C-alpha cells in the first residue's frame, strides 16, 4: 500500500491534466480521475507487470473514451464557454493566455484519436511504446497519429483548416 502511495500519488496531477484536456470540463474530469483512483486501489494487488504510470493512464484513458461516447450519444457535445476555458489554462501573462486558449480550442477540434496521442506523448512525456500500450495500438499507429495530429493542429492554428477560429471584436 505504501508503494501505491509512492507510485500513484505523484501521478495524480498528470492524470487530472490528461482527463481535463480530453473532457474540457473540470468537474467531469475530476470525477473520472476519482473513478480511476478507486479502480487502482481495488486492483493494486492484482495488477500485472505494467508499471504504475502506464497502468493508471490506461484505466483513465478507457474511462475517458467511454465518457466521451456517452456524451455523444446524449447529443451533448463537449463545447466550452469562456469560463470553462479559463479554468483550463491560467498563465500569468495575458498574451500567453490568449494564445493558450486558442491552442486549447484548436486541440479540441482535433479528432479524438490524434488528441490522445498528442497529449500522452507531447504533454505527459510518455514514450511512444507506453502510449501504444495505453491506447492499445501499434507504435507505428502512434507515430502516424502523432504526425497527422501535429500537422492538423498547426493548420488549425494558422487558420488553414476549418473550423475557423472565432473572432472577438
Amino acid at each position, binding site marked *: 500500500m*505504501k508503494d501505491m502511495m509512492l507510485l500513484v500519488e505523484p501521478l495524480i496531477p*498528470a492524470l487530472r491534466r490528461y482527463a481535463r484536456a480530453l473532457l474540457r470540463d473540470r468537474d467531469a474530469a475530476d470525477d473520472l480521475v476519482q473513478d480511476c483512483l478507486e479502480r487502482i486501489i481495488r486492483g493494486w494487488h492484482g495488477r500485472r507487470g505494467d508499471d504504475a504510470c502506464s497502468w493508471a493512464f490506461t484505466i483513465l484513458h478507457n474511462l475517458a473514451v467511454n465518457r466521451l461516447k456517452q456524451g455523444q450519444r446524449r447529443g451533448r457535445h463537449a463545447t466550452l464557454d469562456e469560463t470553462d476555458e479559463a479554468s483550463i489554462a491560467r498563465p500569468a501573462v495575458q498574451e500567453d493566455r490568449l494564445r493558450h486558449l486558442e491552442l486549447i480550442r484548436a486541440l479540441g477540434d482535433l479528432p479524438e484519436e490524434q488528441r490522445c496521442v498528442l497529449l500522452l506523448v507531447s504533454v505527459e512525456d510518455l514514450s511512444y511504446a507506453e502510449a501504444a500500450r495505453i491506447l492499445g495500438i501499434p507504435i507505428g499507429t502512434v507515430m502516424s497519429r502523432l504526425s497527422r495530429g501535429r500537422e492538423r493542429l498547426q493548420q488549425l492554428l494558422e487558420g488553414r483548416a476549418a473550423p475557423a477560429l472565432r473572432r472577438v471584436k
Partner: protein
Amino acid sequence: MSAPSPITEEDLQSYVDNALGPARHEEVTAYLAQHPETQLRIDGLIRQRAELRAALAPIAEEPVPPRLNLARLIERPARPAAGAWRSAAAAILLLGLGAAGGWMLNDAAHPAASGLAAVAAEAADSYAVFSPDPVHPVELKAEESEQLTGWISARLRRPIAAPDLAAEGYRFMGGRLVATPHGPAGLFMYDDDRGTRLVVLARMMEFDRDTPMAEYTQGAVAGFAWADRGIGYSLVGPATATTARLHALADEIRRQFGQSV
C-alpha cells in the same frame, strides 16, 4: 563508417520530442540544415509542443482537490479488510508528513526525527515528489551545473558539486535546492538508460555529523545515508534496483564528496 540511413517522418517526430539517440539527433540536425522547408516545419512543431505543454501545465500545478486525496480514498470504509487499509494509510500519512516514522533504521535506538534517519527520510520525500515529475524533475538542468553548484554551495556554505556517476551508467539530469525541517538541502538527480531515476541529497548536520553509512528501505524506495564532516548525504532509488548496486553507488558518491568537500 556507413552513410546515415534516410531520415524518415518518424525520425522527425522523435526529433520534435527529443526522443532520438545523440547520434541520430545529430544526423537529423544536419539533414534539417540542408532542408530549410522541413526545418521550418519542424521548428513550428517544436514550438507547438512547447506551447501545448505551457498551456496545460497550470492544471498539473493546481493543488489536488481533497476528494482526490489518495490516502483518504484508500482509507474510505465499505471495503473488505477496512482495518488493514486504515493502518496502512496511517503509516503512509506519517511518511507523507515528512516524519521519519515510516523509516526503518537498522539501529532502533537512533532518534529518527533528527540525525541520519531524518536525512534519509528527507531524501525519500524529495525522491517521491520530484523523481516522477514529468515536467520539471529538476529546476536547473545538467547543462547549468555550474550555476547549480554555485547555488547549492552558497546556501550550504560548503563547496558541493554533483557527483559524476557516468561511469556507473547514471546520467546527471540536474538538481535543485529543497527545503527540509533542518534547513536547505541540495538535491541532485540521475537516470539510466531505462529511465530509472536516483536522487542524492546533501545538507548540513546538527547531529550525527560523522556517521558511517546505513541502509534504509521503505516500500518501493531504498537508500543509503551517511554523514561526513558535518554534511549528511543520502542516496535514494527504487527498491527494484538491487541493494548491492545502490550500495556500490553510495560508496562511489561518498568517495567523490569526500574528495571535493
